[in-house]
């Protein structure tokens, strides 16, 4: 795992190629995370790919509901030679959830970005076929946002529910 100093060196190296790309670096539980400005994510991925992080193991979305900007996208990068894991994080607002897709750099992001679009509504520019992957194609709403109701059956155990009106309210 890149230790704190390694993380800072990596952040500076990205800074050389992309001047204002890195917003913050977090070092938590021996795990490095780089907070990136959404506009530069494609370029940062190229830099990290040349720096050895050639395997993208996971892309997932997070909804930081109370604090803005709400929707987060996390890329878990892995360097197989030096056994390093690195997380690249970006925060996008629900008003304009637009991010560049990294499918041409890492083809594995194809299905996972479609799932983030399906569940959180983050639109990935340049994705070959951005449609819903898990929910039915005509489903409205993004289910895994925090303000979407968990839903489910209001469980009623009375047999005469239509005789007692407004029981379910």
């Amino acid at each position, binding site marked *: 795992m890149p230790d704190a100093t390694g993380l800072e060196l990596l952040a500076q190296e990205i800074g050389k190629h992309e001047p204002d790309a890195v917003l913050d670096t977090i070092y938590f539980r021996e795990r490095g995370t780089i907070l990136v400005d959404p506009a530069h994510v494609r370029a940062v991925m190229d830099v990290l790919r040349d720096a050895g992080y050639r395997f993208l193991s996971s892309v997932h979305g997070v909804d930081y509901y109370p604090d803005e900007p709400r929707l987060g996208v996390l890329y878990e990068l892995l360097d197989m030679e030096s056994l390093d894991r690195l997380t690249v994080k970006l925060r996008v607002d629900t008003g304009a959830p637009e991010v560049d897709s990294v499918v041409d750099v890492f083809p594995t992001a194809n299905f996972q970005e479609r799932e983030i679009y399906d569940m959180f509504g983050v639109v990935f520019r340049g994705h070959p076929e951005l449609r819903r992957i898990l*929910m*039915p194609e005509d489903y409205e*709403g993004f*289910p895994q946002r925090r303000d*979407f*109701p*968990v*839903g*489910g*059956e*209001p*469980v*009623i155990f009375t047999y005469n*529910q*239509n005789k007692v009106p407004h029981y*379910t309210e």
Partner: protein
Amino acid sequence: MEVTREPASEFRSRQLRARDMLRGDLEGAELERYVHERVITTTLDRAVSWARGNSIMPATFGLACCAIEMMSMVASRADIARFGYEAFRATPRQADLLILSGRVSIKMAPIVRRIYDQMLEPKWAIAMGACASSTGVFNNYSVVPADKFMPVDVHVPGCPPRPEALVHGVLRLRSMILGDPKLGWRERYGAEGTEEVVGPVAERESGPGADAENVFGPGDTAGA
């Protein structure tokens, strides 16, 4: 539909009479009644439902974890072949039992209903596991209980139910078929007249399902 079970005493007396008959010391009126009981009373319907009950072909319809237990029901330990159920058919045309083994999501529900409609009469359905009977552990926006979109004959509890539990569920279905050979599911559940008649409640004529009005308003169950 209650399964009637014979009192033990009567069963014992039948056994004794069968033994006497085998020994040959059953004569006259006694023998007459014995033969009458055995051969004459089986109507064609009961004979057909006996054959149908003992040779049901389930459809291979594995959804989730219960499918693994359904597979081990077919395997050698809790062997369903003892009751003639092991011929799992892939197409609904040749299957007459649909074992809903797993959680049905809202994307899968129309497909399960189409498979059930494409199965030939007479057909039965077993909702295996808590997820198919009720939504089980996942009471959320994406899981639908089986009773919401198709008529289910036997609900097998468990998450996942043991293979023996499923075999017990299948045997209850068998005794149900032997006991009550009404074939269409609408006759079985008193749902004549509920064929898909579109339109407000008032237009439907007064069949048994006529007064059923939907308790949940539109959008009440938030996508369930």
